[in-house]
Every structure is written in C-alpha cells, then in structure tokens.
C-alpha cells in the first residue's frame, strides 16, 4: 500500500526582514539549478523555496532576517503551482524528470538531499505574467522570528 503524505496547508520561508525575494516568472530555471543555487547571487528563477518546517525557515532567516509564511491554497489561487516535497523527491531521481531534468546525476542527488534536509516545497510562479511583486507581497505574510532562548524554553 502506498504511503499517503499529508500536504501541509502552511509553508514557511526564511528571508530578509524587509521583503520576500521576488522571483522572475519568465526565468525558465531548472529545478535542480534552483535548489542548488547554481549561478550564484542574483541568478534568475521563477521558483520560491519554502519549507514545511518552521524551524528550518528560522535557520534560513538567520540573525537579521524574518520568517514569512504562506497558505498553500492562497498561493495557488494567486497563480502559483505548488510543488510539494514528495513531488520534488519523485522528480529528483537519476537524471531528473520534467523541470528537474539535468545532465549531472550527482547534482540531482544533491538537490534531493537538500529537499530532504530542509523539507523543501517550491512555488512555481511561471503563470503569473504580471504584477509578481504585488502577488508575492499578498501571499507571504511576515511572522516574528522567535529568539533562540524562547524557542529552547518551549
């Protein structure tokens, strides 16, 4: 019997405290290249990485950042395609499948490892042809990052 995975209703992203990074819907980036952040700083991507685990997002927020959250239903209503962790793990095998098709198997496996480690989900914004800034601002809301001390007390 196949295992059923519960799709989370809320996803989290650690980013700067001012705003969530705005993707480029026309970028046509590969999923492997996006997850591995190939191309260095400023590389174009139509994806937004999120995590189903709030603590993972806190880690990415770092000392000066913030945790942002988004409801999956709201994001999909706004035009995003939600690629769940399970879907990503299914695509990241061998030379990759679909938008994760890649020439280097080791890099596909590295992306797979990152998705597992950080419980990663992606939002694909390629269908949002205009006003991406407003859409991102509308979908993601900031929640205050808990300090390490208060987290430990809990």
């Amino acid at each position, binding site marked *: 019997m196949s295992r059923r995975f519960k799709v989370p209703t809320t996803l989290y992203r650690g980013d700067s405290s001012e705003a969530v990074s705005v993707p480029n819907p026309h970028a046509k980036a590969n999923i492997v290249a996006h997850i591995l952040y190939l191309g260095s700083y400023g590389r174009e991507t139509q994806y937004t990485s999120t995590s189903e685990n709030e603590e993972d997002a806190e880690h*990415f927020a*770092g000392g*000066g950042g913030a945790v942002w959250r988004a409801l999956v239903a709201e994001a999909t209503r706004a035009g995003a395609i939600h690629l769940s962790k399970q879907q990503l793990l299914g695509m990241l095998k061998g030379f990759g499948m679909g938008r994760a098709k890649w020439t280097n198997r080791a890099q596909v496996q590295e992306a797979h490892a990152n998705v597992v480690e950080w419980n990663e989900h992606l939002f694909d914004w390629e269908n949002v042809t205009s006003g991406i800034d407003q859409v991102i601002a509308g979908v993601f809301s900031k929640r205050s990052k808990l300090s390490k001390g208060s987290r430990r007390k809990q």
Partner: protein
Amino acid sequence: MRPLSCVNCCHNPLQLGRAGTDFGYCTRHLVVLPRPESTTCGQLFRKDLSRSSAVEERALHQHHYRCDRISQVVSPKVDAAKVGLVEKTNGFFERDVVLEEVLSYAQYDTNISTMAALRRVEGARAEIAMLSLSRGYLANCYDQQGPWWAGLHLAFWTLQRLDTEPVFAASELHGPMRSVAETTAVAKWRVLAFRLYLLVDVSDEARSQSSRDPITRFTALADEALSAGSPTRPEKVLAKLRSSRTRWMKALSKEHYARLRNKIRRLASPKIVQDWQGLVPGREKSVSAKPELLTSVQRGLTRRGEK
C-alpha cells in the same frame, strides 16, 4: 542561499550539511565563523559539486563577492567583520583534536601532514575535515597547473575507506530535525558523496592533463555509485561500492600506487619529498632533486593560491 555560504565551502572543514560543529572556521581568512550560513567570499569552493562545476560556480561568485574579505551572503557589499559575523581565534577548544589540526593547517602550513593526522582520527567529523582540506588543497594545486598526482596520497587514502560506513557521534549532527533517522541517513550519504568527489577531482584532472593512468576511471565509477541509491538510502550506495571494489582497486592498486610514488619521488623537490617521506615509515633518506624538473611541481604544490 546556504549553498553559496561558508557552510558549503571546502575551506571551512568543520561542517558538511547537518554534520559537524555549529560554527565554522575559514582556513583562507583564518577566522572563526559563528554563523557560517550567513557568510561567503569570492574564494568559495563548493563541497556539493565536483571540481569542474565548483570552479565554474566560483568564477560566477567572484562577480559579486570579493576574495580578500568575507561578506554577508545576502548583501555582497557588507563586510561580515563589521556586522559581527567573523571572530579571531582565541585559543578556545584547545582539546578538540580535529580543530587543533585544522588550525595547524591554516596557521602553520602543515599541508599533507595535517591530512595524514586527520586520517588517523576516528569519526566522521575528522574525515569531513580531511576531505574538505584535501579538496581545497587540490583545488589550489590544480588552479596553479600542478600535476594531477599532487592528489595521489589523498586519493589512495580515500580509496582505502571508500566502502566503510561513516560513523557519527550523537553530538556531531546539528540543526532542527524532524526525523533523526532521515537526517543521519542523509549525513552518511553526504560523506560518501564527498569521498567520491575527491576521487573525481583527481580523476578529472588526470584526464584533462591527458594522462592515460587508470585513475581516470574513477569518474565513471563514482557516477555509478552515487546513482545506486538516494540520499535517504546510503546503504545502497555502500552496497554498490562494495560490489565494485575490485574495479576501484584496479584503478589504483597498491602496486600501482607504489610505482607512482617512486616516480614522483624522483621528480619532486627535497621539500616536497621531506613532507611526504614523513608519512612513509623507514624512508628517511632524502632524495636529490633535479632542479630542471622542479618548477612545475613546486608551483603545483604551493599551499595557498596567492595571486
């Protein structure tokens, strides 16, 4: 931006994914990194890529980040030292064997002898440090057109334990975990992959230098092994490595290694031979060098990439 940060750089040998310490240490800038996931510099040499891809990514990285200082990864123009993201070493953690060897490598130029010492320390953290420093050392050699066999000892040592299961102490995994079993599995897979990347680095460099040495077979063997199992099933990768052990050993057998070592000893400078002879029991006699053969070898084995 974690893949672009010091956590993912070979010049920070204290971490690999979720394994290792929470803080990092940069063997280039000689500083402690309290939040290595927030910092980077233009000398980034990525742990999660083999050398050919890591060099391409480093070139792109240098368009945005300076090589002479550590910057905040989210803001390339911000000096990490000015926002409290680097610290000088102050002699803390003196009893940590791995950290002692890493500091010795960085501060006293101990090179191969540090890698040899780390090789003898039990545990995944020591192996991660050894592999990290080794890949950084080889990157430096090859950047300066050094010979591919500058990585010979490192490749042979890595080959000896290629199919042994990495062992983590409970304190060696950090960060938020939803599943300890899954985190441990991925950590083991990362160590196996890291071993293979070192062998691929040497193999690819041998091929690019038009060598016909059987070591060039490592690239294909590594690709086969990594494809055998996903990061959550490192036991499949181990099983593949064990079943293909004969083919790995044929590519760099003990006899072939000994022949190559003797050949290198005839070509290399006294300083380099002295460095290596300390690792071979009973070989204390120095070998006279042939000056006309030394230039490229010496250049290739210079420790730092000063330009």
